[in-house]
């Protein structure tokens, strides 16, 4: 079976053979075979060449969070991503908005509609969990719309600033 995955932002094409409780990844060097057993809803015991690893798995259909040996991996199906609405697609390339990173309060808006901004320029300061956090422009461009004002409470998906990119880089289509 073929999996078109995005692992920690990296696109990864995986060819996997699945037999009962065994998964074989077709690697360039040599195939990697692992057996697995579900321990609980969030724990899967892997056995790779005799070595056991406990994988803790969270998240849902969209993205899975996987913790192994103290490290966290975020894996999603690239196909499901392709089907996502355009506005929220920016996960990998071509972001065109500045969103709130978490539930927060807007402390200060440092740009105006119509203003030209440079990549890395500070646009918004928000405060959450008693800490101030700055949001920066992702590229050179023109602020087309500002959707928040000082004092607003904002949520992670809220788009605070729309920016029209100055010059579109080549879209990464087949990375």
């Amino acid at each position, binding site marked *: 079976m073929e*999996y078109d*995955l995005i*692992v*920690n932002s990296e696109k990864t094409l*995986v060819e996997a053979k*699945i037999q009962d409780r065994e*998964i074989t*990844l077709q690697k360039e060097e040599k195939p*990697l075979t692992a057996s*697995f*057993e*579900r321990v609980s*809803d*969030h724990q*899967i015991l892997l056995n*790779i060449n005799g070595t056991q*690893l406990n*994988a*803790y*798995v*969270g*998240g*849902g259909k*969209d*993205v*899975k969070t*996987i*913790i*192994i*040996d*103290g*490290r*966290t*991996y*975020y*894996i*999603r199906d690239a196909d499901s991503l392709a089907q996502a609405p355009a506005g929220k697609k*920016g*996960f990998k390339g071509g*972001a065109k908005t500045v*969103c*709130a*990173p*978490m*539930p*927060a309060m807007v*402390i200060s808006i440092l740009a105006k509609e119509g203003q030209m901004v440079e990549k*890395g320029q500070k646009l918004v300061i928000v*405060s*959450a*969990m*008693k*800490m*101030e*956090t*700055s*949001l*920066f422009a*992702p590229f050179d461009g023109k602020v087309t719309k500002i959707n928040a004002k000082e004092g607003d409470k904002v949520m*992670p998906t809220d788009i605070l600033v729309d920016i029209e990119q100055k010059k579109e880089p080549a879209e990464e289509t087949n990375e």
Partner: protein
Amino acid sequence: MFKKILIANRGEIAVRVMNTCKDMGIKTVAVYSEADSKAAHVLFADEAVLLGPSEPAQSYLNMDKVIKAARDTGAVAIHPGYGFLSENHEFAKRCEQEGIVFIGPSSDVIRDLGDKITSRKIMKKGNVPVTPGLLGSETDIAILYQVADEIGYPVLVKATAGGGGKGIRVVNAKDELEEAVASASREAQNAFGNSEVYIEKFFTRARHVEFQVLADDFGNTIHLYERECSVQRRHQKIIEETPCLVLTDELRKEMGQAAVRAAKAASYKNAGTVEFLLDENNRFYFLEINTRLQVEHPITEMTLGLDLVRHQIEIAAGNPLSLKQEDIHPRGHSIECRIYAEDPENGFMPSPGKITFLKEPSGPGIRNDAGVYQGVEVPVDYDPILSKLVTYAETRDQAIAKMIKALKDYIVLGVKTPMSFLCDVLESKAFKEGQVFTDFIDVHFSDWKSNAEMIDAAVIAYIADELAGRAAPALNAKQTGVPTPWETLGNWKMTKVG
């Protein structure tokens, strides 16, 4: 002894204090905000009083409501924990006026020491060395520019109130000063209700070494040895340990005596912490006295085998200290890691959300003071500390190894955590060799990214999870640390924000 104590705090420290109350047969009253109705400290208490909306000013920082809660429940004493009202002298005063025992020093002492300026003066008088800097808070930017020039950059803009790394900015050059002052003032206002700031010399390569002190009403003042707290991010400690590697027996003795002198100079009562900066030449400077329990107090408890909260309560109840300086002998080595809901790959940005799965490490020499449980919501409104993970072992190397094991065995799904970051810090050559200064993270881990060496295993786990379906319905993906569009946008320059 007190029959009932109100704990004017939340999260892990409220649970920590209640633990000792329960050991002592004292009934506990929790207070909480609307965001915390099912918080761990609420569930753990015998009684719980809703203070108000989630905003701290309307709940945990609201003195009237806290005092009323104590009155209504018949609590005879209040333990303030750390943060919130713990170093608010007006609150201590209110308690004194209302006949409620405030578990901490007197309001006068809190006021004097809480004002970093006054405390610096007291210490100078008490023959305790202090850092160069301003002797009063200042709003006039012209004067601030002038003083900064005098002591030389880098300087530290520092809120005169509070602690916990809030309201503090490092200023490396003149053109950063004004924004730093504005930002620190604002943060201090939000966190402590006091926007005053001052400046002092910033030591780029210094250690933060603090001494625990205990003082009773009968003139007994002792120190409980040191804690090394140099590993910090955003001026907030994240790894603490005891003993401090670089202290010789002589220096340790000298600093311990200075700590006792500092406490006595301030007429200090109850548990407190004398913070020193230790420069590269082993000169130490008084920084401040934290007039409350420290976050990192457990490492002292581990090496000394005692319960600091119990001694706080005993002292507050008017009992004489049961410990004598000559009986205090630290043993072994202890390390604490603060486990926040935060993203170490993005400037340690807080990561609120619901904890969908929680597996705490346990076993010999491991202590985890947790303030959360599986299923709880980590609210956006407060300091995102989940727990303090503490290890103890016979030697430092062993305590480090145990901590790394514990971090790998500590599974939190639903919010981001610094486990892998902390592992890398603890495994680093610099840390192992004890080369820890307050700039440690900036120097060694400023652009830290999690090493993704087990990608194949993770991919297999992904596929296995798809194949061997879970019993429960899929969880809300939004809650599980999913990369969202903004991750590619921001450069989280938290450590040096202008």
